[in-house]
């Protein structure tokens, strides 16, 4: 068992002592104020607090030990309530590394291990030095594919053998990089892998502009202590500039001074947008500076961040869902982003950035990488039936009507300007909005994956391999029932679906939805059966197989899976494909209106 790096102990003791001193000072002051303690006691209590805080931090450091042994990561921790945890490495989903500024100066990093279970990060090593980070990362990665045989590890090998890979798997990964066959003991020198994407300043700024976040300045201003004052000053400045400040009062009570008000509004909106752009650029640069995505035997590895550096491994064989996101601007300029979802993250702090493999790249490249990870054909989305569009018109009209009613009520009760009918303009975008929503929704049953698509402003395409499906559900709201429509949802174990990220095929024809559900069930069974059959395929085929990137990925995909792991064999896959072909045909028939 090893301890964390001693330098991290210094940091943590210092932090603990500081917190303790602060608390002690506060408590002492309160005590001196109310309980008539002598004033001298304040520094004494503070020192006592510092000792207590520092001592506890030190005790925690001393109690925290971890070890990689065989195929288990063991972590002992806790001062009062002691905990000893064992994580089978085959079950580790993601390994994430974070370096804040202090740790960067000290050459340390925080390593987090995520598994599918549990409600928090399963093991956090805070902190180890950079060489150790590499060792851990490489060990975990290689462990996934290597025979558990070598290890004289006590319980790990026996108990968790289910996750333990076999020789085929080793052979599979060795195809790519023969240098990799070195054992875990000498695993420190890891070749950097193949570079997939990299951000220079150009890409970084493009990304910042196309992913501009209008909400960013709102949050920033609300977060700043004087944020609201800044807003007020800016508004007053604008008002003075346009000379609208004296017009503002009468406006509230009935006589708007049209043009000036318009200029005022336009100016404010323009400033807001500029600010949004500036804030977005800053945030993006800070978050994504130096972004690199590489691939080395079956893992994607990302690095990014200007001040706080993040890096992490996304094991491709654990991928549950691929999500391609394109907002309006990105679509316009042919960009897209790719999220690779595993079952690893379970709520908490990293939601915003989890699993983002490629923040921005040309659409084709994104799809190419996606196909590399999880092979699928050309996606050809089938839109919902036309009556779904009427549903959207009805729905948006209801919303517009509701807002108009509110405007009317507010105007006639409070402002009495008589201009409530301006709200009727909300009806103008109803039809185009409904059309756009309809246009961007769709579903495609590919040979290997289910793909669904939705959203105009931020179009999200979810790609779910059939063998990853969990439950399939069909829902029909009362409004959908009126038009004989239904939505099909396909759940996976992806952690992003916690945030409503389930692949959904919206507003299909009722009968088609039921058929889709059945079809998904059939394909799940068929694909699992295929994978199981592949598991029992003979070894030579896998070893002899050449390095077609697609195949190597699938072989590693298979390699994670329980017990028998083996490479996917081309013939077996062809079987599956033809089987699906037939299935697809009758699906197409029922899919028709």
């Amino acid at each position: 068992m090893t301890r964390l790096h001693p330098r991290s102990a210094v940091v943590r003791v210092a932090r603990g002592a500081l917190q303790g001193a602060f608390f002690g000072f506060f408590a002492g002051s309160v005590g001196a104020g109310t309980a008539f303690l002598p004033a001298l006691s304040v520094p004494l209590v503070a020192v006592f607090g510092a000792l207590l805080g520092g001592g506890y931090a030190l005790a925690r450091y001393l109690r925290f030990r971890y070890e990689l042994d065989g195929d288990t990561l063991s972590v002992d921790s806790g001062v009062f309530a002691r905990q000893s945890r064992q994580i089978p490495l085959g079950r580790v989903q993601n390994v994430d590394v974070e370096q804040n500024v202090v740790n960067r100066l000290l050459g340390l990093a925080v390593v987090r291990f995520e598994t599918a279970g549990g409600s928090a990060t399963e093991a956090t090593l805070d902190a180890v030095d950079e060489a150790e980070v590499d060792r851990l990362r490489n060990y975990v990665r290689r462990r996934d594919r290597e025979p558990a045989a070598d290890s004289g590890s006590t319980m790990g090998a026996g108990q968790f053998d289910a996750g333990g890979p076999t020789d085929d798997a080793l052979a599979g990964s060795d195809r790519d990089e023969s240098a990799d066959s070195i054992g875990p003991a000498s695993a420190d020198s890891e070749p950097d892998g193949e570079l997939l994407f990299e951000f220079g300043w150009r890409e970084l700024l493009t990304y910042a502009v196309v992913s501009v976040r209008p909400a960013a300045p709102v949050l920033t201003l609300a977060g700043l202590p004087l944020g609201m004052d800044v807003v007020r000053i800016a508004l007053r400045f604008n008002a003075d500039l346009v000379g609208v400040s004296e017009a503002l009062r009468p406006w509230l009570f009935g006589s708007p001074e049209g043009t000036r008000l318009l200029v005022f509004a336009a100016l404010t909106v323009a400033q807001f947008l500029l600010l949004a752009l500036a804030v977005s650029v800053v945030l993006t640069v800070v978050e994504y500076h130096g972004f690199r995505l590489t691939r080395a035997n079956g893992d994607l590895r990302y690095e990014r961040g200007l001040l706080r550096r993040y890096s992490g491994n996304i094991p491709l064989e654990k991928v549950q869902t691929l999500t391609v996101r394109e907002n309006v601007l990105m679509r316009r300029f042919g960009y897209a982003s790719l999220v690779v979802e595993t079952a690893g993250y379970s709520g908490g702090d990293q939601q915003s950035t989890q699993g983002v493999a490629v923040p921005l790249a040309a659409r084709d490249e994104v799809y190419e990488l996606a196909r590399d990870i999880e092979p699928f054909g050309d996606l050809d989305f089938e839109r919902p039936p036309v009556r779904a569009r009427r549903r959207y018109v009805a729905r948006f009209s209801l919303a517009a009507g509701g807002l108009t009613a509110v405007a009317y009520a507010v105007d006639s009760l409070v402002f009495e300007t008589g201009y409530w009918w301006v709200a009727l303009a909300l009806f103008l975008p109803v039809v185009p909005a409904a059309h756009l929503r309809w246009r961007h929704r769709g579903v495609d049953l590919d040979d290997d994956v289910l793909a669904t698509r939705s959203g105009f402003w931020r179009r999200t395409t979810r790609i779910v391999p059939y063998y990853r499906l969990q439950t399939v559900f069909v829902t029909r709201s009362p409004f959908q029932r009126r038009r004989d429509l239904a939505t099909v949802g396909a759940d996976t174990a992806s952690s992003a679906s916690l945030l409503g990220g389930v692949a959904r095929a919206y507003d299909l024809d009722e009968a088609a939805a039921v058929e889709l559900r059945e079809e998904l069930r059939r394909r799940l069974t068929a694909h699992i059966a295929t994978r199981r059959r592949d598991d029992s395929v003979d070894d030579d085929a896998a070893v002899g197989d050449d390095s077609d990137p697609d195949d190597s990925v699938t072989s590693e995909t298979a390699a994670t899976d329980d017990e028998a792991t083996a490479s996917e064999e081309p013939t077996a896959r062809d079987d599956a494909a033809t089987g699906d072909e037939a299935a697809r045909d009758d699906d197409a028939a029922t899919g028709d209106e």
Partner: protein
Amino acid sequence: MERLHPRVRLLWALSSVVRTSVLAAIAFAVDRFLLALPQAAIAAGWLVLVLAGVGRALLAHRIWRFELQDDALFLIRGVVTRTDTSVPYVRVQHVDTTRGPLERSVGLASVVVYTAGSRGADITIPGLRPERATELRERLRDLAIESEATDAV
């Protein structure tokens, strides 16, 4: 397809009474200690919600159905938004039977099926006779074992 035990209507009606009463109690507490609310309105609200709850219970029982199909557990439910769900046996992680206090009082039990999925990872079949619940749990367990998934997450 199998339907729930008719007594589940009583269970749901009771639980809606309990829930609504808690709300009413809170409303009365607010009325007593914070600001005056019309008591008649609270009583009326209670009655309306209870009636709605009972109506919902009746409808829900009429709609609820489940079936053990060859490769998946299939359920239909939902009064307003109707949902049917198939849970492939391959995906079943574990199965529970539970009996809450209200359920015990009307002599019913539920079976909860867990999957590794994230939305609807636990699926509850309420309103079963206890023997039936146990039997169902064991049947589901056997089906899950038979189907034996290759890939864990």
